[in-house]
């Protein structure tokens, strides 16, 4: 049987690259920007994962069926994430919590809500 495995030398090189990327991602965490920070962190993580998959896991020697199986899980995950977030990203902005009669009338019903949206319950509202 023709055994195709990554050579030791390649393994060491890949490991070195992974360590460099690890240092990079820790440094990049200094970026004080939500969106950019996430993108950079995820990009670096993806590159690391790809290095592991392609070299350590010998996918570069694999046939198309195996490659399809490798991709399947990630494609499935993207579907889950994308369509689930299509809901979260397009929901109406968090409720307007007005000081409606209810708020005055049945405060205990709103305890959980008040914990979540304290801004709506300015001090001074009481029965």
């Amino acid at each position, binding site marked *: *049987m023709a*055994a195709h*495995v*990554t050579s*030791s030398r390649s*393994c*060491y090189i*890949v*490991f070195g690259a*992974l*360590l460099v990327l*690890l240092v990079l*991602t*820790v440094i*990049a*965490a*200094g970026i*004080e920007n*939500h969106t950019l920070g996430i993108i950079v*962190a*995820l990009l*670096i*993580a993806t590159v*690391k*994962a790809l290095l*592991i*998959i392609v*070299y*350590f*896991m*010998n996918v570069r020697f*694999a*046939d198309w*069926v*195996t490659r399809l*199986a*490798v991709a*399947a*899980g*990630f494609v*499935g*995950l993207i579907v*889950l*994430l994308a369509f*689930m*977030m299509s809901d*979260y990203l397009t929901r109406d902005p968090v409720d307007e919590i007005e000081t409606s009669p209810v708020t005055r009338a049945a*405060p*205990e019903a709103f*305890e959980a809500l*008040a*914990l*979540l*949206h*304290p*801004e709506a*319950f300015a001090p001074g*509202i*009481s*029965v």
Partner: protein
Amino acid sequence: MTGHVAHHFDDAEQQFHAANLGMWIFLATEVMFFGSLFAAYTAYRYMFPEAFVAGSHSLDVVMGTINTAVLLLSSLFVALAVNAAATNRSRAAAGFLVGAIVMGVVFLGIKAVEYADKFAHNHVPGAHFQFHRESEGEHAVDGEHHVSVNESAIPGGDFQAGHNSPDRTLEKRVELFFSLYFAMTGLHALHMVIGVVLLGIVAYQAWRGAYSQTYFTPVEVSGLYWHFVDIVWVFLFPLLYLIR
């Protein structure tokens, strides 16, 4: 080495292919399993970014970084073990596998230290959960700024000023962050434990010289599993420890 070919396979190549493909498909299910937790993470991080930053700041980045390096090193050992087994060096493969196992145990040890720290700081979700704003840091005196629920102080159901203060809200949402933290890292740690056992069995077989150029399927397949667990951590680390 046809002795390794099970009755229903035609030849060793078919068997190797089946085992390899089977493991990859299993890993696809694992991607979806962990992926569900990542999906939960994505939704909540989108909803409560400030709580995730606050929660993340209380995690120890140094420990996390060391653990990532430890895990990457273990992956290197496993890759070298596969290489050794495939090149007729079964004993060497056993050595590399033991190295990977040791790294795995070190990872779990560091994780345990981190968990203990979380317990000590009441950062474990549940009845005793407490969290202080990061500005107060780890040095905040318990109870000083923490707003506790004082049930007796709410007769008639009206709100106490602090009961629903922004701090209290943040605390609740950080509890959510820590719920995810424990669910994700706990599940990951469970996979590590399984992986250590798996590698242990394979290492024992390797030491007995069971593997060679023509038959190293168990090394390859359990290696795939170990690398996958590593990949999960590669994503967990920045998403949990490095939120700014």
